[in-house]
């Protein structure tokens, strides 16, 4: 197909694809799935962190956390907009999320049990997210690439704030340090799982790579994340909960233990500790808000009607 070939050539030449350009159906579909999953993750991701806003330990921390959760909602918004340029509406995407048809990042199905979890999420979860997203700034689809540039800037800010929370805890009382270690213990493996299954088992990868909507392999990014994070944990004086973790001089990176993929797939299947609560919270927000959305629409129609009458 010459159209497809021309399309691939533009991608290979590093020319961005824009919404009005022709694109293969598969490219469109894959992008919609990827962008909307990412958007949904930002939306659901408000919940575990939102859980500690009312209990943040200082006014400053409360303000930082509010700003962060607000940023996440903002990311959700531009990602939905990016997806909309591909011909799908936000209502459709929301419906897919609430019906359980669309996925979001499984990491948000874990609970935030202590204040240290807010630090760990910033440090590890945002850290892993950035690792995934930095390359996507160069992805072939213009709106997604531009959204990623904006998102990455804010995420790296969030990561520093998360690390700062961990730092304060590790410099604090023995109880606070234990809280930090406990959070690392609980978030470490789920963070590694955020990069997805091993390349061998990953579907869609080759085509997505060719289309430049995936720019690195899962294992490659995971390795980078481990290599970046282990020294940070050491600096904090915390122990990474992996007895098999050790520096491998030959590859210039860390070897790490086997990931429990059974857990990963259980969580994906809906059996994580918080899957039901997260979905229930979103469904409730949507249902309870129906009158509000309808009220605004009705008002807009009335206003339009009044303008028409005034013009007539």
């Amino acid at each position, binding site marked *: 197909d010459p159209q497809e070939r021309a399309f691939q050539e533009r991608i290979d030449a590093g020319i961005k694809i824009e919404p009005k350009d022709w694109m293969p159906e598969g490219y469109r579909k894959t992008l919609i799935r990827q962008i909307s999953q990412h958007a949904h993750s930002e*939306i659901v991701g*408000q*919940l575990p962190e*939102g859980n500690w*806003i*009312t*209990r*943040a*330990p*200082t*006014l*400053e*921390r*409360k*303000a930082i956390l*509010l*700003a962060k*959760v*607000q940023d996440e*909602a*903002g990311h*959700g*918004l531009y990602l*939905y907009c990016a997806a909309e340029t591909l011909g799908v509406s936000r209502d459709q995407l929301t419906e897919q999320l609430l019906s359980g048809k669309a996925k979001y990042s499984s990491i948000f199905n874990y609970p935030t049990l202590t*204040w240290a979890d807010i630090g760990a999420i910033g440090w590890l979860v945002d850290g892993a997210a950035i690792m995934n997203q930095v390359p996507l700034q160069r992805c072939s689809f213009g709106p997604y690439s531009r959204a990623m540039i904006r998102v990455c800037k804010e995420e790296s800010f969030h990561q520093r704030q998360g690390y700062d*929370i961990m730092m*304060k*805890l590790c*410099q*604090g*009382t023995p*109880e*606070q340090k234990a809280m930090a270690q406990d959070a690392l213990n609980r978030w470490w493996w789920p963070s590694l799982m955020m990069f997805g299954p091993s390349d061998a088992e990953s579907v869609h990868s080759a085509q997505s790579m060719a289309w430049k909507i995936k720019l690195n392999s899962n294992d490659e990014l995971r390795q980078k994340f481990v290599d970046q994070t282990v020294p940070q944990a050491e600096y904090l004086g915390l122990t990474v909960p992996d007895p098999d973790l050790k520096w491998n001089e030959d590859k210039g990176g860390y070897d790490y233990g086997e990931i429990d993929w059974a857990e990963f797939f259980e969580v994906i299947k809906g059996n994580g500790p918080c899957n039901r609560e997260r979905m229930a*919270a979103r469904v*409730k*927000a*949507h249902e*309870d*808000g*129906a*009158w*509000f*959305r*309808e*009220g*605004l*629409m*009705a*008002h*807009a129609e*009335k206003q339009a009607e009044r303008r028409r009458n005034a013009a007539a």
Partner: protein
Amino acid sequence: MARAATDDTALFEYALRLGDNCLILGHRVSEWCGHSPVLEEDIALANVALDLIGQTQLWLGLAGEIEGQWREGGGRSADDLAFLRDAGAFRNLLLVEQPNGDFGKTLARQFLFDAWHNAMLGALQGSADKRAAEIAEKAAKEVAYHLNRSRDLVVRLGDGTAESHSRMQRALDDLWFYTGELFLADEVDAAMLAAGIGPDLDDIRAQWDAEIDRTLKQATLRRPDSGHVQKGGKRGVHSEHLGYVLAEMQFLQRAYPGARW
């Protein structure tokens, strides 16, 4: 020029009241995070809460600074004031501690408060106390935005569907009970007025009345009948709700005394 000690006690109380309003309403608004009816509202509410927490830091910071003039060991920090007082020492209006209810009640509460807050901050920008005037100037910009937003939504929902109209009307009717206290001057307000630091609450009421009447008219909502004035927040006699807010808000500071975060 040294201010008389009595004025400073009143100013301390006054700063606490302004700060506690922001803190408690900020807390209530932040309870919505991730649970609001549309994404845009999640963003807007987080933004309002964020502004209010920022204003809390300024007002409680001022309160602590003033307190430092007489308290052994210095005035308390804004954090200590926020996290280590029990309910009876809080000075916020009853209105702001009322539970969120449905989104309509949250909005109505916000609008009733914003209209007061905006008028207060407008006046406080001319305060004889420079520190208060500076805080008011910064906060006034934010609060003007809050008021624009809450007013706009009250109008759209009041003049929306039958359901949105009736929800907004019910919210107003429920909350009206707590609005009298906004204008009830006591000795602290009188001292602040006399010192040129705070406004005359009768003037604030006139501005508030005008704002409310204009907006409710546009929103096709009925102004509830004035009735009994429910009061107490400004002198630390609250509703049963505040204790629960504080138990949640203060948990970490209480459970790990002296820890730094």
